[in-house]
């Protein structure tokens, strides 16, 4: 049979084509009005998934950017705080150089000390710097002031500053699997130590031991006398003031007492210490002071000198060591290494006590162990001369400590360098992230945006088609045999 075309076909085709074109026009209108090609996932599922990945990327990059800015903000504050720290230390070093001149008088030294105390105050402030309410040198303990004054002397001067922050740096994620430490721990900035040799200054004969100390900064070793015992035979005994007054120390044989009983009955004679001047004694002396050649001193009781004794006798002089001004003390055992403990902190000082011969005090400088605060405290106190140093000693101590200033300041500068480098890399990271962000946005827009010129062309085309469909349908519909039947 021939293929018949009925008017219904023309009608339904007309409707179908008109609808198809209208639908396409509606779609194009959507694209033209929204500027987007992807309005529903089904418009292009593959591109949709890619756009989603890009959008997630873009959101994440935004988050990284915000974190980078956060990190940069923190580091900026930190860097300026470190610069100030470095300034403070430089100024203090300058004062130390001035103070090391032997010629300055006490009043000038005191005014320098006041200056240093002000610097110390500033340093404590700087070390407790906050950025938006968070302490930047407290590690992860950002809500606690990291450095607090834990001891003051009678005049109210700060004696000790302690770190109370955490031992971990706070981290900020700035990129995929990349975190930077922004909040450094205060201990690594202000309290970094590089323990070196401990130096004893004094005349007792005490020397640093072989062990490693844990005490820091500077200290004083008190070498005191506890008991003098004389070798048997001569009848010489320790005098009444011996315990408190004797200045000799040493194991048996280290000191020698020479007794010459000129009376032959023990009633009188002479006595001398370590070849010092002979002192006359009688059998009524219970507290005879005998000076040695080098100024050492013993008190003897000569009431029971063995009759006719003439000759040398060996002395054993025991003593004690203390690093906390006598609060706790350790008996001297005259060995190559003795551990002396600071009572309250438990910090140890190792002492070679084998050559200790006289009492006295040793100024100890624990090389490489100063933190920034100790350094300023020690400088101030030496300028105030709380340790009773002579001008020469002060000058020596202060000059020797200049190295410590350099070490502490170098450490601060090193941290400053690290942070500056981090800042720099963050800056370039920020730039890179922004570039990637831009690229991602561009890609997204390529995938997502409608090609407007093409949309407009298609719109025109489909509009034409619709008009043609309607026109042709109308034309065909109007044809009928009836028009020709009379």
């Amino acid at each position, binding site marked *: 049979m021939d293929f018949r075309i009925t008017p219904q076909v023309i009608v339904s085709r007309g409707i179908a084509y008109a609808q198809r074109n209208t639908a396409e026009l509606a779609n194009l209108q959507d694209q033209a009005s929204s500027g987007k090609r992807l309005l529903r996932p089904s418009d292009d599922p593959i591109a949709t998934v890619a756009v989603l990945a890009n959008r997630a990327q873009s959101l994440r990059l935004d988050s990284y950017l915000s974190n980078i800015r956060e990190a940069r903000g923190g580091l900026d504050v930190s860097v300026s705080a470190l610069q100030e720290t470095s300034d403070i230390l430089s100024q203090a070093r300058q004062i130390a150089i001035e103070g090391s001149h032997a010629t300055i008088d006490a009043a000038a030294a005191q005014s320098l000390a006041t200056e240093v105390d002000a610097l110390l105050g500033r340093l404590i402030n700087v070390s407790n710097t906050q950025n938006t309410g968070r302490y930047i040198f407290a590690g992860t303990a950002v809500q606690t002031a990291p450095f607090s004054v834990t001891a003051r002397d009678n005049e109210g001067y700060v004696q000790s500053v302690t770190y109370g922050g*955490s031992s971990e740096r*706070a981290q900020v994620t700035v990129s995929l699997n990349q975190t930077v430490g922004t909040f450094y721990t205060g201990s690594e900035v202000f309290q970094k130590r590089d323990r070196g040799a401990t130096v004893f200054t004094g005349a007792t004969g005490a020397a640093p031991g072989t062990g490693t100390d844990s005490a820091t900064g500077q200290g004083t070793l008190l070498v005191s006398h506890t008991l003098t015992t004389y070798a048997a035979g001569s009848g010489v005994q320790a005098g009444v003031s011996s315990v408190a007054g004797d200045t000799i120390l040493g194991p048996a044989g280290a000191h020698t007492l020479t007794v010459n009983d000129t009376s032959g009955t023990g009633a009188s004679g002479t006595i001398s210490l370590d070849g010092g001047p002979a002192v006359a004694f009688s059998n009524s002396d219970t507290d005879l002071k005998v000076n040695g050649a080098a100024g050492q001193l013993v008190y003897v009781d000569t009431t029971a000198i063995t009759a006719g004794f003439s000759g040398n006798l060996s002395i054993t002089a025991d003593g004690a060591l203390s690093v906390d001004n006598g609060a706790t003390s350790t008996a001297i055992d005259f060995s190559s290494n003795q551990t002396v403990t600071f009572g309250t902190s438990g910090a*140890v000082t190792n002492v070679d006590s084998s050559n200790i011969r006289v009492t006295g005090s040793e100024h100890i400088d624990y090389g490489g162990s100063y933190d920034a605060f100790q350094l300023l405290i020690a400088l101030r106190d030496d300028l105030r001369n709380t340790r009773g140093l002579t001008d020469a000693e002060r000058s020596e101590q202060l000059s020797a400590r200049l190295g410590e200033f350099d070490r502490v300041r170098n450490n601060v500068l090193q941290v400053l360098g690290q942070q500056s480098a981090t800042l720099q890399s963050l800056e370039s990271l920020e730039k890179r992230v922004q570039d990637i962000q831009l690229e991602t946005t561009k890609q997204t827009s390529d995938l997502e945006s409608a090609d407007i010129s093409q949309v407009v062309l298609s719109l025109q085309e489909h509009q034409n088609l619709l008009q043609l469909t309607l026109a042709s349908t109308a034309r065909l519909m109007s044809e009928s045999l009836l028009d020709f039947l009379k």
Partner: protein
Amino acid sequence: MGGVFTGLSALSSSQRALDIIGQNIANANTPGYHRQAVRLAETVPVEQGGFLIGTGVKVSDIQRLRSSVLESAVTRLTYESADTSAQLTTLQQVESLISPSEGSVHDDLEAFFNQFEQLASRPDDQPLRRVMLGSATALTDQLNSLGANLDRIQGDLDGQIHQSVDQINALARQIAAINPEIQRAEVQHIPANDQRDQRDQLINELAGLVGVQTFEHDYGVTNVNVGGWPLVTSDRAGEIQASLDASGSIVISLKGQTQPLAISGGKLGGLLEARNQFLSDVRSRLNSLTSELVQRVDAVHATGLGLFGGFDFLAGSRAVNDITAPLAQAGLAFAPQAGSLFISVTDTATGVRTLNEVVIDPATQSLQNVAASISGISHIQALADAQTGTLKIIAEPGYQFDFAGRLETAPDPSGITGTTVPGVSGKYTGASNDVFTFQVSGTGTVGVTPNLQLLVTNSAGGTVASLNIGQGYEPGSVLQVADGVTVTLASGTANVGDTFSTRVIAQPDTAGILPALGLNSFFRGDNIQDIGVRADLLTNPERLGASASGQPGDGSRLRDIAALRDLKLLGGGTQTFREFHAATVGDLGREVQDLTSQQSQQQLLGQRLETERQSISGVDPNEELVHMLQFQRSFQMAARYITAVNQALDELVHIL
């Protein structure tokens, strides 16, 4: 005189023909109408004068012009495209629901992790904590509303399915009613064309609702099968019904039978496919995304510490259905596995912290057993609440507990015969749980004696570090061991063989018991319907488990949570959370795209079939007009013929 009858036959045939033409013109626009044509045939000739002479014309048949091949193609296309469009409608609804516009689950998911990462930079910032919790709430709200919308769509589908079932049953009854009418006519050889048209139209309507097979029997009786089972048999109509099966799917069965019908095609087929396959697939994908997210985030969060450190009291938020049943069979959404839970107990006055291991075997231990094991730890008590099915842990006054797995503050000094006191600190960064054993080699004084060493070994016996604690070591100063762990030895003596050890914990909950029981969780619930942020976190953001160390500036747990987004945890370990969701969106888009192109193909095919059908069965009014003129003429001519015959007879009559 046969002439009159011949003319009469021509008259009546033309009249029949004109009737049919009238019917055709009248029904030109009736859906399902098939053009009818009159078949004319000569009548039987009679012998006259030795010749066989024709006696006129008769209507031999009134034929319905239709191609059964084409009609069955149309029927098939009807139910296929109804199927497609029913599916497409549903899919498009779901598509617009999860379409990745701004503020969609996709963006919220990304924002959720971003907020964790940003908060990790300033974890002590309370307003920022609220912002983060707000974005978490936005995500859970979004998931909830998605769940509710999926429910709503499912409800709509259920309604439509029941409606379709009713319509199918009504149509079946109508078809069954027409069958005998046709049979009655056609037994008498009367073509029941109009009833057939009517029935074909009903069958096509039925095909729009469900895929059908038709079987034509004698005398025009047509049986209709649905899903392989007879729905209409001659004049009997079956009835189908919809019901829920055990898995929550809707199944269709014949009334009075339980055997489900394999329905395919038609609106019903499409609705069933959309509801039972597609919708439940989308829901299960979103649910697996949600439950994985909840479990992972909770597992990390549970081991975190808030701004105020440990807990005095903690109640689980996920319940078992029987506190005496082994955990593996207790109906937990996140099944725990065999492993350990490490609980730290801190004396708040002294700060001394102990680390305690609780071994968990879900195959044998019930919640009650676990509570008993936890209660075995000094200073804390655990209780399995029979009423709620949850676990509660309470610390004695002056004590706190947590699951951060931090190092013990003081190692057990009982293995040390010297006077030195050891201390361990730091944050373990290793990958697995271990025990570091420290042993002194050499005898002497810490910081003084040369060659005094501290050997550190791990539980496998491998050497971790060998540290100098003799001459050159500053007593009390920090020595790096390995993986972030440090050790100190106070000044004093140490003897050869002196030993102490410390547990180092990378994963405080290898059993996964914390997320399983919802202890210190971040979320509540475990699926899209009931997921939410734990209520007391929203009111007390300081409880957020941000840190591993308890320091306010430590955001390491937050960072761990943020890191989850790059782990390929879904799709059998091939997709991250975001990728999985994007793939769901993409797959959905692809399905909609497929169905849309399928639909437009079906439309094209439909148009072609309709054209073909029209070419056979369609009424062309012009054609009918031509035929009308033809038969009009034929009628006039027959009339004229009769007149002629009549006049001839008149002549004869005049003769008389």
